[in-house]
């Protein structure tokens, strides 16, 4: 399908560069990243001593979205502080993202 989704990954900042590399390897044509803090099952992550989080957003086809999520689940989800979610979005130039 050509439906585009905005996939958001929030994870420990130490994982940022691996995740970025991997999602590009699995079909994402780009991504946007920013520093965030947060709280979840792994406790509070809001300072550089204990680590903070990175938020990585990428607009991808439904296919790539599923593929990336599958990969993240296997490689990271059980061992690291991390969540991921997605929803459909409308974009201006679909070709930019495929």
């Amino acid at each position, binding site marked *: 399908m050509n439906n585009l989704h905005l996939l958001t990954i929030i994870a420990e900042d130490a994982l940022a560069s691996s995740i970025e590399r991997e999602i590009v390897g699995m079909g994402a044509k780009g991504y946007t990243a920013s520093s965030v803090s947060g709280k979840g099952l792994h406790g509070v992550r809001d300072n550089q*001593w204990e*680590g903070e989080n990175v938020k990585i957003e990428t607009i991808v086809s439904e296919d790539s979205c599923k593929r990336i999520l599958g990969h993240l689940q296997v490689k990271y989800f059980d*061992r690291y502080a991390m969540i991921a979610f997605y929803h459909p979005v409308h974009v201006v130039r679909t070709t930019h993202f495929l």
Partner: protein
Amino acid sequence: MLTSILSPMVLAFLLGIIASRVKSDLKFPDSLYQSLTIYLLIAIGIKGGHKLSLATFAEVWQPSLVAIGLCCTIPLWTYWLMRKVGKFDVPNAAALAAHYGSVSAVTFSAALAFHESLHIPYEGFMPSMLAMMEIPAILIGISLARINTSSMEGVTQVPLKEVARELLAGKSSLLLIGFLVIGFLAGDTGWDQVSPLFDTPFKGVLTLFLLEAGLVAGRKLSDLRKGGAFLFGFGILFPILHACIGIALGHFIGLSMGGATILGVLASSASYIAAPAACRVALPEANPSYYLTSALAITFPFNIMLGLPLYHEIAKMIYQIN
């Protein structure tokens, strides 16, 4: 002892703890923390390199061997103790081993400041010991976890070689070692150019950093219970033991009393910059509450407040008796 406790650095650390206990909104911006870290590592490195350039190889090789020996064996018995006595699981025991084998640049600096304020001389090349002792223990800790974990199914682990590369290229060793070399090469001219930034205001910057360290340590205090009495006792007794070993070995190889004490402080200190960063990635199963709390909220304050004067007394004993 009062000299140590009433120094602006220690007082700033205490103020940080108070601030976090009274839930102050005082917060260092992330980038200030990062900038202070960069500054401290560069300053320690470049001054050490400059001093090293004034030393001879004959003076340096023995202390270096001892330093490396210390940071390679400390993780071994720490791991053993954590497993057998502390009943920790493999990742947590390994992470604690990595932290206590490695060293704390800030404790080290506090030790230098302590000796300077008492006008006790020490060998100028001590920062190179710091640089040498930072990484090996972390690698050993991580290896211990790898060896003792029956093949983790499905989990793709980062190869140890990769971990070693990342540690060496990691911020803290890169800056420490890099500026050690720069300070060594730049000579007196170079030192005069940069010392107004990297030497003169150093203790002031350390004060700032310790305020921030206190803020974090204060938050971690409430985690102390999780670690329990064992971790608390360990976090104080083991550093004392390591300090004694370090001082004794320093005395044995002919270091000055100041130098031996500082070697003891290095042995006794636990890393809370390089080691936590490495463990978060390579040992994600280990719980930061254990290693960070004990390194930052127990051992670190103990060392800078009570440890320094204590080790100094111990050193005086060893050097006078013998």
